[in-house]
């Protein structure tokens, strides 16, 4: 976590190619280097007794990988799957391991080359909303893309939730703030 943080915040390294996708009516971006592939929605096997934002596991050519619903993860309302809904397979680091994980997004938009000048730090929100998982805000022609530090997104909340799953969540969604505080 720290490494990606310092590498991104300090150098000029925030510039680069981003895969942008849509969640509800917001546009997000993912470093393209983290993306392994994009696949259409396929049958997901639910794993019992897990938080609702964990959709389950899929068979990716013989590998079993977990799939998360990013909408639910961010505390947005669940949406019906459409033919645009797809799974972005990213490679994230959990501790010292690198793990493939799928995230369900509403639709994939495009791959954007974003310069450093186009990226701003995330503003500080009131109410203790953590913005750690946001690499920065990209502004491209009046449009705003929220650039995600996907390692952090997937690391922070989930592990903590699974750790004390006994008493937490069952069908209940958490908002971002809760998620982040749970992680810290």
């Amino acid at each position, binding site marked *: 976590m720290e490494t990606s943080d310092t590498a991104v915040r300090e150098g000029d390294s925030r510039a680069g190619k981003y895969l942008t996708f849509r969640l509800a009516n917001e546009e997000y971006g993912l470093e393209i280097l983290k993306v392994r592939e994009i696949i259409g929605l396929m049958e997901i*096997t639910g*794993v019992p007794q897990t938080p609702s934002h964990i959709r389950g596991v899929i068979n990716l050519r*013989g590998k079993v990988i977990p799939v998360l619903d990013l909408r639910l993860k961010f505390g947005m309302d669940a949406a019906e799957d459409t033919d645009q809904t797809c799974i972005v397979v990213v490679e994230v680091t959990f501790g010292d391991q690198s793990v493939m994980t799928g995230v369900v997004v509403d639709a994939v938009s495009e791959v954007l080359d974003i310069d450093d000048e186009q990226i701003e730090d995330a503003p500080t929100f009131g109410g203790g909303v953590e913005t750690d998982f946001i690499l920065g805000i990209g502004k491209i022609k009046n449009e705003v893309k929220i650039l995600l530090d996907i390692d952090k997104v997937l690391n922070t909340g989930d592990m903590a939730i699974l750790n004390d799953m006994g008493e937490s969540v069952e069908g209940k969604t958490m908002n971002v703030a809760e998620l982040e505080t749970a992680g810290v």
Partner: protein
Amino acid sequence: MNELEKQIQEVAKNLQWPVSDLESRVEHIATDLVMVDTDDLPALANLHENFLELIKSINDDTAVTSRVAANCADLVEKIVLSEVDSKAAAIELLNSAVTGLQAIIRDRRQPSEVVFPESLAPADLEEELNEPEVSQETVSEPEKSPAVILEKNKPVSKEPAPQTEAEPLIINLDGSDTSLLAEFITEAMEHCATAEQMLMDMETDPGNKSAIDAIFRSFHTIKGAAGFLELKPILVLAHESETLLDLARKGTVAVKGKIADIIFDSIDTMRTLLKGLEELLKSGGTYDGGEVIGAILGRLKDLLANIDRIEDYLQEEDVSNERLGDILVKQGTVAESDIEEALANKSRPEEKVGETLVKQGRVPAKAVAQALREQQRARHGNIVKEMVKIDTERLDRLVDTIGELVIAESMVGQDEEILAKASTKISKNISHLNKITRELQEMGMAMRLVPVQSAFQKLARAVRDLARKSDKQVNLILSGEDSEVDRSIVENIGDPLMHMVRNSIDHGLETAKDRLKAGKPEEGHLWIRAFHKGGNIYFEVEDDGRGLDTEKIVNKARERGLLPPNKELSEKEIFSLIMLPGFSTASQITNISGRGVGMDVVRKNIDAMRGHLEIESEKGQGTKFSMKLPLTLAIIDGMLVSVGCEKFIIPTLSVVESLQLTPDMISTVNSRNEMINIRGKMLPLNRVRDLFDIPSCDNENSDSTVVIVDDMENRIGLVVDKLLGQRQTVIKSLGRMFEKQKWISGGAILSDGNIGLIIDINGIVELARTVPSRRVSRIDISRMDGNNPAGNETSAVSTAPEEGVGTEEPVVEVMI
């Protein structure tokens, strides 16, 4: 006389062995020598090996050829270690020596006719025996210095230790090929293991020549490589041990008692050094090899200096060889009476029995040759199968890919569209594909299997050490070392087995005095067995010691608050108490075991391997731990069941039976908690649908089957919709994200490409205890109590329904 010699040569030619073998070896050496480059270390090592092989084939240490070959081998070694002034000149010397050997062996000249280069000519035999390895004395000089330091970075120019004019003792890893070093470490570790195993063999059979040869070779190889890599401490230790081993090889000393101890210690020290080196590779810095080897070196030197005064160590005559005649009789080639007759009619007294038999036409020469080969084999140990080392990661990937192939194959083979259109030709091809795939799968699985030997070997060593430490006489009886099991299991079984062995020796077996008092033989017995049964592998550790004291265990458990007072337990439950964390019956904490960690760790390890542990014990008679494990961790034998629209796999290992569920089989407690009567025993019933919150799916068979599972302590009934059959599937981990998910142990890819989750029996039993308590307020059940939640309550509530069930025998499909 001339006539006779001709005849002998005639026979010898027919025999083909060992004469032609010698010839071919010498020829080999000669060609190798022409091709060898002075800096080509592998080739030199090979050459060295060939000389040793030659000596072995000559099989007579006093023969001129053998002694010359030995000198040649030493010279090659010096070339490798750069201890000669001119390598080219040394090769020249070797060349002329080999020409001499060729003359004797191939051209059958008398040794007296052949001139060898002076430095390689056979030394006077007596001299050699009195002063073993004179030539190597120079090598051992520098080792006397206590400070041998391995250093990663620049060699600090320290004061050269006394007597080390020739070479500095400091090792410079800088610029060394790290991959070469890493390889050396792995290889040397393997050599240590081999040596250790052979040493163990020698404990029971001190005259085992092939074993001592193997140990010698291991040290020798390590020494050679260490010399090349300039790892002085390792070189020194290997060399010094080798000197001792060489004496053993020559029959001057026998490997037993103190000498065996010291060699064991050498091996251990070698391992320490290797580990140190490994650390050094990773982290750099310095590693004081001198400190590590100091003690053992001192002991070795001491022993070597006084060796002639220790009469105990003199070797006994080796009588273990089977005679050629016996082999022939065993093979049925010849009758015993024939041999006796042949022996009586020998044409000359020193004639070998094989010759006589061939000459008298009683046996074909070929049969004698075969028998000779067998004899040779017996003398030199088993013929080793040829092996290829493979990166385990690659192997795993191969097995994974085969797993996928199996799935892809069944997807094609069971595709309805294809089946509908299939002509005979297509179905024939599909079934052919199916056959090949299965075969490939089996082969893939078999590749991961290794004999449990390596795990057993460590145990044998531990038993030896522990028995000595605790001053008990233990006769260890191993069986089933050849049983094959998945590599990962062999790796993981070591610790649990070790704990059990420790337990047996420390707590189980009594001292000789106590044993005699109890009317048992002085020597305690410890059996360690491995065997296959019903697609699983079993490990057993059994002793004939004092057995588990149930009373003491119960008292202890109460004391520790692990057990509510006034609770009656069955014997099985009492035994399972010792596997609770923080439980230890040893009244005294010894340095061997008894710190209260142990059996719970064993339990955890076995659970992790999806295994099953059972304890049998009778007071005063002994204890038996028996573990049942799947053959492989990569594949699971499971029952595919459906619940709602989901499919799950229940490991067959934990399934006791399964049966059709009818409403009248169910009794309830508090009108919520369900139970089922299985042949008079009430078991709690849990619906997987409720445990996992699975929505119902249009399914007319909902909750119609019950699978009885057993997690060792508890037996519960799991209610599912339908049994879909037995499956063997490759287990895939669900990954870090689900590692806290204890009731699912992994995923398996089903024939339709979807994932079936594998139920973890321990986990689900645990879950079954917690989930219903959320629904109904339930009597407080402690962990132990949970064993049999129904137990306390049955008598009160379920008399009537129980009888109802009992009269009507349910349809039982026994799965195992």
